[in-house]
């Protein structure tokens, strides 16, 4: 059974019909890429899944349970963790405090262990653990945002445009990390404009176009698909 099932959701910003019946599913252990151009509804889909927005129609099922009316903060304890667009680190807190915030919902004793785990995944963060997050570089902030999301021990990680605003050389590193996280058993739903990179690590992909799923296929097939190649990969 799918870990996450999105069944025909319609989401509005006031009167603006942003999602017009988006459906897809994510199986346990998969990396799924949602690609599409600006305004296609990628971020809205993610915000709807994470509970920051409520769909007017349709439902979101997670682990066999309807979550489309559950508050965002409750979803964190159910195992859904989100890395928001533009990273959203707490700029005035230190790296370590940011990671502590990630473990906010946990009350078990293993937080210290997981902090070590996060530092071994991102050695750069260990060097800067006492530094204020706002002074990190863009790439380091992205690492911090991902590490922080992992601190809540999620089963499903929602990543919103992790490559945004990063130098190409750093983008490679970010996607490598995402791959490694997936290898450790975390299911990943990835929203990206950088379709090329996203499809390289993803198992399957969905192409969103003006609020609807236009194409869905395995990542390998999508990379070969003529429309996708032309529109999103820039290959003629």
């Amino acid at each position, binding site marked *: 059974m799918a870990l996450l099932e999105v069944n025909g959701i319609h989401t509005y910003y006031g009167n603006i019909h942003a999602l017009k019946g988006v459906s897809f599913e994510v199986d346990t252990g998969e990396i799924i890429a949602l690609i599409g151009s600006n305004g296609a509804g990628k971020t809205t889909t993610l915000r709807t899944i994470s509970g*920051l927005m409520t769909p007017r129609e349709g439902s979101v099922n997670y682990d066999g349970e309807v979550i489309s009316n559950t*508050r965002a*903060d409750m*979803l*964190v304890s159910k195992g859904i963790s989100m890395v928001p667009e533009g990273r959203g680190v707490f700029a005035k807190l230190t790296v370590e405090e940011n990671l502590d915030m990630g473990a*906010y*919902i946990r009350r078990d004793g293993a937080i210290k262990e997981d902090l070590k785990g996060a530092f071994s995944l991102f050695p750069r963060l260990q060097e800067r653990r006492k530094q204020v997050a706002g002074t990190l570089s*863009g790439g380091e902030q992205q690492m911090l945002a991902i590490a922080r999301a992992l601190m*809540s021990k999620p089963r499903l990680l929602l990543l919103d445009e992790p490559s945004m605003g*990063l130098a190409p050389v750093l983008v490679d590193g970010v996607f490598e990390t995402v791959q490694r996280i997936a290898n450790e058993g975390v299911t990943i739903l990835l929203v990206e404009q950088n379709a090329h990179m996203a499809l390289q690590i993803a198992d399957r992909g969905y192409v969103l176009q003006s609020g609807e799923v236009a194409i869905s296929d395995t990542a390998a097939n999508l990379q070969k698909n003529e429309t996708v190649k032309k529109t999103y990969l820039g290959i003629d």
Partner: protein
Amino acid sequence: MDILRSERSRIVVSLGLLSGAFILFAGAVGMIEAFHEREVVDKFISLGQLLMLLAPFAVGFVAASRMAHTDASALTLLVCGAGVGILTAIPTVILLLFNSEEFRFLLDLTLKLLPLAVASYFAWQRYRAGADPRLVAGAWLAIAVLIGIVTYSFALVFEIKGELRTVLVNINRDWVDVVTFDHRKELMTGILTLCLATVASGCVGAIFHLIPDAPRRALLYGLGVTFLVGAFGETVRLILQEHLDRDTLKEIFRRDTLRQNAALALFVVSTVTGFLWAMFGQNLRHGISTMEYSQRRVLNGIGMLLFVAILLSLPWLIGRTLSDVAVTIGIFVLMGLGLNIAIGLAGLLDLGYVTNYAVGAYILAVLTSIGPLGLLKGTFNFWTVIPVALLAAMTAGFIFAMPVLRMRGDYLAIATLGFGEIIGKLAISDWLKPLIGGAQGVQAIPKPVFLGAELKNPEQLYYIVLVACLVTLFVSIRLNNSRTGRQWMAIREDEDVATAMGIDTARAKLLAFTLSAATGGVAGAIFAAKVGTVFPNSFTVFISINVLSLIIVGGIASNPGIVVGAIVLIGMPELLREFSDFRFMMYGALLILMMIKRPQGFIPSKIVTHEVRQGVKLKPAAAE
């Protein structure tokens, strides 16, 4: 013309005119005159004159320091200082001339020639730019007539009334007395004295820049201490009165004014101390920082003990009048600490804090009053009502927070501002009049009784405020370092991300509002007990603004900052009561100055220092 266009002369002219305009303005609004009432040093200088001389001194110093990089010689700096000084005097001198009988015709002449001059200037500019001569002539006429209507009517008024002060109320004999240093009769001598004084003070300012750092700081310290003690002579005398005998006091003060000898002695002593500190302070601090940990701990302990001893003996040290001020400061510290939970920790801009203050005060008033409005005469006393007031304020905070939970930033501020106004209107309304007395308020509130003794003096009430402040301080420090505090911090930084961390933002905000309201209620209850009556007009939006301002001036999210902010913004105006007309003007000037020069507040918290200093960098870099 070249010399006028050089950088140096530009600095001198702009700064000189700035301080000149300041003095003219301060005179025209009556500030100099009002401040003249208070003598700083007996028969030597008044606060008004000090204010007048401080301006050229400051700009003289600034001018010199701005020229430091142009390797100007000492003589040049001196000339610049003098230039700034004379420019400072010029606007005031012109007004003095206009005001005098002999030179009144100058004013008349100016008012009559001004429209022609202005019109001709603009016409000439346009003509040179190649405009049609007929158009230029038309414009000349139009401008001349338009400005002329205004200036000619002024000229007419002055001609009929004969004196400037019919229009400018504060430009009167007293003002002339102050600015001419009591030479009203012989105007030329007066003008000369004024110019000499401003020039001298401008030069001193410039010279100050040349003095090496250590003695300069010492001198500044000495002058500052002397003038502060002089300016607050009444306050200092009140303190000393508690500890010195009458004769010694008479040696130092003539009524409330510092005597010349005493001022000189104070200046010498404080300068020498300042000099020693500037020379050896560094070594001392270095010595302490290299000390063994255990030794430092002992030193810290001694410091703490001393601090506690001063806190405990404060009413005895400063006497009754000042204890009363201390209680008022304490009440505001209490509110500052409370509001800081909402603003400093959770980032919720609450402009209706007066609500909680009013609820606390009215609860205490209604429950304990022995007057006609007292509900349960004798059942409740101060001590049993305090928890009730606290809970009532918390309830009010909770109720008012409910509808605004979804609002953010500016919208939240406006909504809370509205709540503050509602409470004010409710308190004065006829609807609640049977309960809380409407405009008459509630009277006959008994003083707190402790172990059979009535605590009716400010010296005794001080301890109640002190205990309340310490408890609040303790709670707020604990909150700051707790999981709850972290949760608020996350919301302050980014509400969406905080939600993504699993924080229930609605509950956290509700908690912040409710806890923040609690101390406001206690502060209100203490206030009501202190004053003995509760009137609706004590609860205006100014209370909310005051509390907010003291947090900002002291340093947002910084507990020591709140204490300093309360002393500066609440204590100082209490001590400067006789200048109450200018209170809000000075208040505003201070706030503007703070925001420009030290936006992080007097004693900033670590996080905020970071925010202000690196504000630009803190936004995530768009690209690597």
